[in-house]
């Protein structure tokens, strides 16, 4: 066991998979000599050579198309989109090409591609770097979307993603990259895609969340335990497409109250989907409406007000109080 940050855990996963399977290729802007702008691929080109780990020209659509073409040739591309705010440049390659390859070919081809990308707010980036755009990929049939909240999950989920035979969008919250270390086993292990995790058990209300908001929600749960002895269960979705609704519903049947917390803007998206599904599957178990804590439906702001814009502990606490007191 070693203490690792999330970024180290990600590098470790890439190294393990590059070593294990010669068809795994890692590429993107600045991923070669430079090791990526966050150093996620640090040392990999040196270790595996330029044929396995390489820079691309600066063109996201080209990167996406390259990945699709390589997938057709039997490779397992791990393509980096330098910041997820730039994914629109690659949207056709992901949504119209990679996501549809299996269907369009009636199963002859598939796209075992991982699109890795840093995202998420609170780190004072220039505009268009921090947006939470995962909701767009809930309406993109044919892709999976994975968002780890800690180093252990990041490594196990990334290995699963690389081994998955369908396209996976793997989103790495920038704030979590180096915010803490934890014990991460050496060598390979997997965390299954599509399985949520109860990260704190409780009886009185359920928070459903993912990514950096897992930590915000855990702090809110602690506060409520202190302030009023409420036992709040916190579920880390880990995969937001497909959503592990079974784990969510099981919890809601126990607690009868739910709040969904996401960093992304409010309309549609993960929180809306979770609320709708709780409604469909567990409405008779509910003692209060399912609430959402989200950013407002504006564009992602410039850095000066992002801390006020992003959901915080206090907003989660207030929503929980509302469902508890309903």
């Amino acid at each position, binding site marked *: 066991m070693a203490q690792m940050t999330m970024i180290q855990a990600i590098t470790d996963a890439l190294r393990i998979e590059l070593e294990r399977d010669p068809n795994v*290729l890692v590429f993107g802007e600045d991923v070669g000599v430079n090791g990526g702008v966050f150093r996620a691929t640090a040392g990999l080109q040196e270790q595996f050579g330029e*044929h396995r780990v390489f820079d*691309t*020209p600066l*063109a996201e*659509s*080209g990167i*996406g*198309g*390259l*990945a*699709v*073409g*390589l*997938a*057709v*040739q*039997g*490779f397992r*591309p791990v393509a980096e989109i330098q910041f997820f705010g730039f994914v629109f440049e690659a949207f*056709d*390659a992901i949504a*119209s*090409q990679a996501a549809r390859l*299996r*269907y*369009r*070919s*009636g*199963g*002859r*081809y*598939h796209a075992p591609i991982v699109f890795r990308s840093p995202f998420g707010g609170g780190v004072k980036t220039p505009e268009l770097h921090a947006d939470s755009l995962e909701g767009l990929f809930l309406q993109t*049939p*044919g892709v*999976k979307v994975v968002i780890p909240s800690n180093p252990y999950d990041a490594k196990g989920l990334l290995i699963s993603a690389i081994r*998955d*035979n*369908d396209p996976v969008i793997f989103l790495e919250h920038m704030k979590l990259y180096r915010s803490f270390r934890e014990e991460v086993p050496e060598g390979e292990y997997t965390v299954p895609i*599509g399985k949520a995790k109860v990260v704190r058990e409780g009886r009185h209300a359920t928070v459903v969340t993912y990514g950096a908001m897992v930590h915000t929600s855990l702090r809110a749960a602690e506060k409520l335990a202190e302030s009023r002895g409420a036992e709040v269960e916190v579920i880390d979705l880990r995969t937001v497409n*497909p*959503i*592990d*609704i*079974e784990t969510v519903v099981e919890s809601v049947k126990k607690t009868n109250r739910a709040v969904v917390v996401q960093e992304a803007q409010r309309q549609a998206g993960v929180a809306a989907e979770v609320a709708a599904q709780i409604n469909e599957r567990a409405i008779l178990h509910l003692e209060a409406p399912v609430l959402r804590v989200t950013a407002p439906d504006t564009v992602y702001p410039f850095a000066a007000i992002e801390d006020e814009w992003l959901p915080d502990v206090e907003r989660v606490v207030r929503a929980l109080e509302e469902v508890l007191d309903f």
Partner: protein
Amino acid sequence: MGVLVQERTPYEPVRILEEDGTVVNPDLMPDLTDEQLRELMRRMVFTRVWDQRAIALNRQGRLGFYAPVAGQEASMLGSHFALTKDDFLLPSYRDIPQLVFHGFPLYQAFLYSRGHIHGGQIPPDVHALMPQIIIAAQCTQLAGVALGIKLRGEKRVAIAYFGDGATSQGDFYEGMNFAGVYKVPAIFFAQNNRYAISVPVTKQTAARTLVQKSVAAGIPGVQVDGMDVLAVYRVTKEAADRARAGEGPVMIESLTYRYGPHTMAGDDPTRYRTNEELGEWERQDPLIRFRAFLQARGLWSEQEEEAVIEETKQTIADALKKADEYMPKQTVADLIDVMFEELPPHLAEQKAAFLSREGR
């Protein structure tokens, strides 16, 4: 003194045959046997007949989506003839003839036209992707396919077909640029048929030629008379040989014309082009030209052409019958099954709902 330069490199289309079939450029004459020359003619006749049949069948409601190809036979089949079965094709929706001569069964082409999933199931021994609908998306994928070939150390070539409109897309440039950087065995084959639906190429770009766009990607380019099947074969063969030898990608601009509508979905070419213009291009027809060339050498006769026409009609009838009889019919449950390798729970639920509706 001005320092700006408009354009340095003049491109002239490569041509071997005059419109009357005489050879104007014997130095470039490709090394093809008599039998290969006749096969080229057979393929063009087959494609012309098929095009006429497909248009008729579409009007009768027996075929669905179809993009006519008459006028482009030399461009399509001359270039494809320069490739081998191991080479990899990335066609657009119009490039069904190349796909079929690459081994894709005709009845599946008909199922593709009808929107049946089996129309996308390229057989395992046919190295090709399904027809691309997103204009120029095949260009970035070409870079990936060709890089894959290079990484595996194979002596194969990949080719993408696209139109003049596609050269305005970023993906066209991105694909060529990636291919140039990685020096991969790729051929970017632009069929400049003068129109992207209704928009003429003069409104597509201020560039005098499309091929000059290869200069920006740092790769060689060539313009070819796309109504001259021998010239198209010749330039593609050179590009393929070069790519196979590890010397990197090439762009080809083939000057051609589509006689028919853009697709059979209500396009009316008289809205955007004149009959005189159409007539001018029909006078350069690739079949007329090549027929004259072959006849002058005693390699082609009317009877032979008749025989090919009859044979083609029979082949089409057989393929149509096979398409009509193709089972199983497609269901929504089948569609759900082919989204992922393993069915995720939400889709399993949705599939169950459709299965009960579909009475299974």
